[in-house]
């Protein structure tokens, strides 16, 4: 006489998987790492010569311990102005002799010549500058370079920078490199 196998009670299975689910929810975090990416320069060699850069090609940004900004000798009250200042400095649409020089350079990724600015943004901060201010300045600078790249790509390819091919991106990056030089730290504020 064949006996029917009794059906397994699977009701508690759901409870077990619920437990697992809550465990993973608690031990994991959704937030992915994101932020502003930068490349640090290699350390200075003992007898390395500092390359000479023409005054007009340097945008000097100083941030003091009270988070105040000094850009090329002028006080800047709002950090948000920094973006347009940087853009004008790099792009120099009117060929102002006080802003950066441009030089024609062959960009092999695009296979053509382009005007590349010689401008360098020099950023120096005090030991007492707050990190929030530092990031605000970095953010403005990044925004300026991103906009320059975006404008170039719109004009040249008719597409925003995000949409162009990897090769074209490389080319645009060479035309507008993120040229931020962070000066060797100094300790103006006195106490460490």
């Amino acid at each position, binding site marked *: 006489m064949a006996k029917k196998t009794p059906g397994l009670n699977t009701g508690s299975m759901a409870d077990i998987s619920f437990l*697992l689910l809550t465990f993973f929810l608690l031990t994991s975090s959704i937030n992915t790492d994101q932020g502003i990416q930068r490349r640090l320069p290699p350390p200075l060699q003992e007898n390395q010569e500092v390359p000479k850069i023409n005054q007009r090609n340097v945008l000097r940004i100083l941030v003091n311990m009270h988070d105040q900004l000094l850009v090329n000798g002028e006080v800047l009250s709002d950090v948000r102005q920094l973006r347009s200042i940087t853009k004008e400095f790099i792009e120099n649409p009117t060929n102002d002799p006080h802003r950066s020089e441009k030089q024609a350079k062959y960009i092999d990724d695009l296979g053509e010549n382009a005007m590349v600015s010689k401008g360098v943004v020099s950023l120096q901060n005090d030991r007492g500058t*707050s990190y929030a201010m530092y*990031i605000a300045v970095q953010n403005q600078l990044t925004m300026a370079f991103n906009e320059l790249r975006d404008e170039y790509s719109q004009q040249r390819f008719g597409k925003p920078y995000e949409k162009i091919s990897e090769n074209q991106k490389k080319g645009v990056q060479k035309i507008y490199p993120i040229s931020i030089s962070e000066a060797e730290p100094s300790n103006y504020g006195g106490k460490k």
Partner: protein
Amino acid sequence: MGRFKKEGKKDVPELNMGSMSDIIFMFLFFFMVITTMRESSLFVVIKVPKATEVQKLEKKALVSSINIGKPNQNYIKKLGPEPRIQLNDQFSEFTDIIEFVEAEKQRRNEVDRTMITWSLKVDEKVKMGIVTDVKQELRKASAFKVNYATSKVITK
């Protein structure tokens, strides 16, 4: 016309719970895929600054974090309110960074070693002095690819 038969008292049929577990398992896998395990508990309080121009870090496995901030409630009595550096699971001095960089490089394949991104997770109230020291140490240890962790805001 339809006639409804009445067959005495009828029990409410039992619900089939078998597929319930499948649904929950699907949930489980979904969360397992989109989340990452918390690596180490933080001993420092970190509220990263906000920025608009943020980039996502591509490869999780190639990110090592350096945390800087005030010690949290459990440690603030012992260590005071000065910002501290936390590497992995312990408080460290900035002189430990070169060692930390070496250890982190050893953990990875040889191919990936130059690709490691060093994520600086720094509280927004921290002064730049300690951050600069850390950056100098990173340069000495030839760890050049850094990321300043920020949270994203949309408004400019």
